């Protein structure tokens, strides 16, 4: 039975795992600060144009946003469960759960693309461009959709990156190069995926739910 080997500059796998995990938490903290600027901008705009933001939220598809929230939450569960399965030495189960995560992530992106398509058909484009804004002039509604595209777009980029990494790691599990002896690459990727989920947890009420009754 072979002992797991750490990279040459670490005395043990335990120390290597701790260093990698700390590095990931710091990276995730910097990601939070990246989104913080946009959340702060949203807060400032919404405080200045509450009615326009309520109108913009009513224009978004609440049921689709809710469905996407459930999809991302379940994908997060699958990633956490897959990571645990690999640690426990259940490689096939781990690979299948990570592939489920990837599938759910793709579904999320598909629904988000569908929603963007509906907006484009209604003449709603980033930067207040399009027929919708000619019919609905006003700075507030233009700012709402600009920050909407900015935040959900940046989030979709993160989803895409996460999907790529998880798909690569599923491939590595099936090839036998990501093993239960040193599983922390999957742990770190799953952490990234969970952060993407946490960001959506806040985007959902801000862009879909809190536009007044109905």
């Amino acid at each position, binding site marked *: *039975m*072979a*002992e*797991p080997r750490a990279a040459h500059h670490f005395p*043990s*796998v335990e120390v290597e*795992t*701790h260093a990698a995990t*700390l590095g990931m*938490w*710091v990276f*995730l*903290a910097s990601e*939070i*600060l990246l989104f*913080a600027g946009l*959340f*702060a901008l949203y*807060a*400032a705009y919404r*405080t*200045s144009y*509450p009615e326009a933001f*309520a109108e913009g939220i009513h224009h978004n598809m*609440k049921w689709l946003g809710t469905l996407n*929230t*459930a999809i991302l*939450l*379940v994908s*997060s*569960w699958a990633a*956490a*469960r897959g990571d*645990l399965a690999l*640690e*426990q*030495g259940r*490689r096939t189960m781990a690979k299948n759960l990570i592939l489920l995560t990837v599938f759910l992530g793709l579904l999320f992106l598909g629904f988000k693309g569908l929603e963007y398509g509906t907006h484009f058909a209604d003449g709603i484009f980033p930067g207040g461009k399009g027929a919708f804004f000619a019919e609905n002039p006003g700075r507030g509604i233009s700012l709402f959709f600009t920050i909407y595209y900015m935040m959900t777009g940046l989030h979709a980029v993160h989803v895409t990156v996460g999907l790529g990494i998880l798909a690569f790691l599923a491939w590595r599990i099936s090839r036998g190069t990501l*093993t*239960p*002896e*040193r*599983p*922390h690459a999957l742990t770190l990727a*799953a*952490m990234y995926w*969970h*952060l993407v*989920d*946490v960001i959506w*947890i*806040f985007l*959902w*009420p801000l862009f*879909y*739910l*809190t536009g*007044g*009754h*109905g």
Partner: protein
Amino acid sequence: MSTPAAVHPHRFVNPFTFGVVIFGLLLLTGASYGLSYVELAPSWELTFSLTFAVAKAILVALFFMRLIDEAPSNQIAFITAVLFVAILIIFIVADVVARSERPTLVQPQTGALVQPMATPPGPASATPSP
């Protein structure tokens, strides 16, 4: 044969806990969705929705991200970032609200700040006697 990695023991990371957490997350999501159809004042609607969101984020961070089992150094790194975000947003909103309630005018010639007319001069603005 595979040997599981020598990682620190997990007190809360197990399939059962993950099952309970995802159930709780979906329940909170349903509650948030249902609440969006209840007639509430906009400020309360936002407060309730964000409270549910914070609860969900805490569940994900603690259990799925395993923050509950992490070393204190890792917990501090993440919690500090969240705290900074909260401070940033609270002060920005406070600033925007304060400006909209009490607009400050700048005198074009001198660049000096002019108090709004609505603010009556109080005893503090009087010239102190020697």
